[in-house]
């Protein structure tokens, strides 16, 4: 369940999905499974005047066209513990910083 009362909308939150290691697309061949946690949700609530100004400037084409700074976005602020698994050739692998633990609008 997402924290925050009804009507306040869902902000940037931590979500999770059950995956096979092969689903990560990193090339590892293993039948092991894992829980992958990721951050998603809008970041409107954490907007500042800076973001408003940027948005207005970009909309009014006052900024160079290829130079639009990005808005605040929902990203991990901390990562899960390392993921270790055996692959099909019985080689041990450890993947670091692979799954989110905390999320924030940054």
């Amino acid at each position: 369940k997402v924290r925050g009362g009804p009507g306040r909308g869902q902000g940037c939150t931590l979500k999770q999905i059950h995956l096979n290691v092969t689903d990560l697309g990193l090339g590892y061949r293993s039948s092991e499974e894992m829980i992958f946690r990721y951050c998603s949700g809008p970041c409107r609530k954490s907007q500042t005047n800076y973001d408003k100004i940027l948005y207005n400037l970009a909309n009014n084409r006052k900024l160079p066209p290829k130079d639009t700074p990005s808005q605040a976005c929902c990203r991990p602020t901390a990562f899960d513990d390392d993921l270790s698994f055996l692959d099909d050739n019985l080689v041990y692998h450890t993947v670091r910083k692979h799954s989110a633990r905390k999320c924030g609008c940054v």
Partner: protein
Amino acid sequence: LDGVTGLYFSQNEYIETVYVGQPAGTPVLQVHAMRDGDTERPHFYLCSMNSRRRPAHVSWFRLDISTGVLSLNKTLEESDFASFYPSSQSVKKLSMHVMALPGFTKNSLCNSRSCPRINLEFVNATMPQCGQTDLKELCFPHKDTSNPHITENRFPGALRQLRRLSRFNVCPNYTISYNVETETPAPFAVNETTAELVVTAMLDREESESYRLLLVCTVRTETVITKVETSLDVFVDDEDDNAPYLNGTDTADIVISFNRTVGGSFGTLSVFDRDLTPIIGRSHNKYVGTLLNIDPWAKETFDIKSSFRERKAQGGIRETVHDYYLVLKRNLNVMENRTLQLDYLVNDTTYPGLEGTVLLHFNITILPVHIQFSNITHIFPLTRRASSYAQVGKVCVENCQQFDGFRVTYRLEVPDKNASADAQSCHAAVRIAQAPDEMWALLYVNDSEALRRPECQDLQYLVVVKEEHTQLETSTQIQIILDNEAGQESQPLLSCAENRRRGDCESARGLGTTTGRCQWRQGYDKGISENYSTCSPDLRTCPDRFCDAVESKDASICPQDCTKKPVIGGHERGLRNGIQAGHGTCYCYTEKCFCEKEDIKETICDDMCKTIIATAL
């Protein structure tokens, strides 16, 4: 053999069950000690392993000093059962130790570590009557797991009471007898009067390490005869009754040449012994070796080391192999040139016979190492477009890859020291690099500007090699042939490894490129592969999973081989540094490397395209 070792028990645990209501005087079980001779008479005692107070239950039992029969000293009462704390379980474990001595004693401390434990289960119930007892229970304890061990070369005798003494009177109308069967003839029998299992002859472990016996219990009632069987493994324990022997040669011919490092080992001579060598508590088969008539120089230089292992000889009987090899105690000087013989006497110190030694010979030839180049001149081609850190070539004195235990260093010199300043500056074009643990050196481009200057045409150098201890020097001429192509304009060089695509890579000028352009390696393997796609300054040296002396000079030259930082994406790390294998394409920004597979959507010919091709045809 006459090594007297005294009485010993053939098993280290005895188990039985006792019940409430069993009267005083009831026999429980019988222990046996193996003897060394016909005249020896064991005296059995209950004993404690430490000097703390004996548990109270020990006084409920009495051990017959000469027969080893344990019997009840008192009738077991329900109050005896209740005297234990905590009293929740329906079965209590009573344990005590037993020792055997050749004479009388008043000491109640166990005399050695091999005093068997008697484990009795005290059940809070009366003993089942004949009608409720399974025939199997009458014949054998249901969970006796202790297998007898008999030492080889000992006096034969009784080793186990087969009868369940405590159940003997449960069914007075039954006649119970035992006999022993074996697949192959074995020296075991049952004494019909006492129902004891007896070993009838001396055993030899080198003949058979164990015997599988089938114990048959025959129960006769007035109407039926029933047979109950159980198997028993009897193991034969080893003692040192075999002298060491050689299987083939007693001489090792050893030539020491390029490898002369301290700790280096040479030659192996094996000494065999049909006896076993225990790893823990080296009680027997102890080997001691001595170097004979050794001069002080050899004493400081050589040592004989040994290790032993077990193997199965003919017939599947285990035996010991002792391996002896020569070890250098110090680095040998490259000039050292001599021959010598070391004689090594191996003695099986626990073998009681006379021939317990073997003499080994190590014939050692130490050859001097000639540090020299096989060629007087080396010619290396080089393009004027080569950039800084481009590898020009490798220099190695003869057999340098095999050197160990001494060090040679390479340096680059200008042949004509009186040359003009212009010529001198041309020579700055090339330098030499050597990794601390390598015996070869690499020539590389140091100043790519100098290469491009038209006046720098004839690059000649002298590579001088010096041995560290003897200061001996040797040298070779190096000639670098430059092509006549004009060099490109100099511009700041990037790392080739930054390029993620073939097109970008092959049009980029990068650090360490021999041709001026980066080179692309296309991998086709699926998953994580050593043959990943990447952009490199020179595919002969990068990536080769080895960070060489030139590549380690700048992190941008070949981060694929040299990076020390974590790699992002699917990969396997190299043994020391770098990427061993990667997924898809690996690219690096300075030291930070990424491996990823790009889903390149191949432009499939759609319907429109097919129509166009069809009409064109």
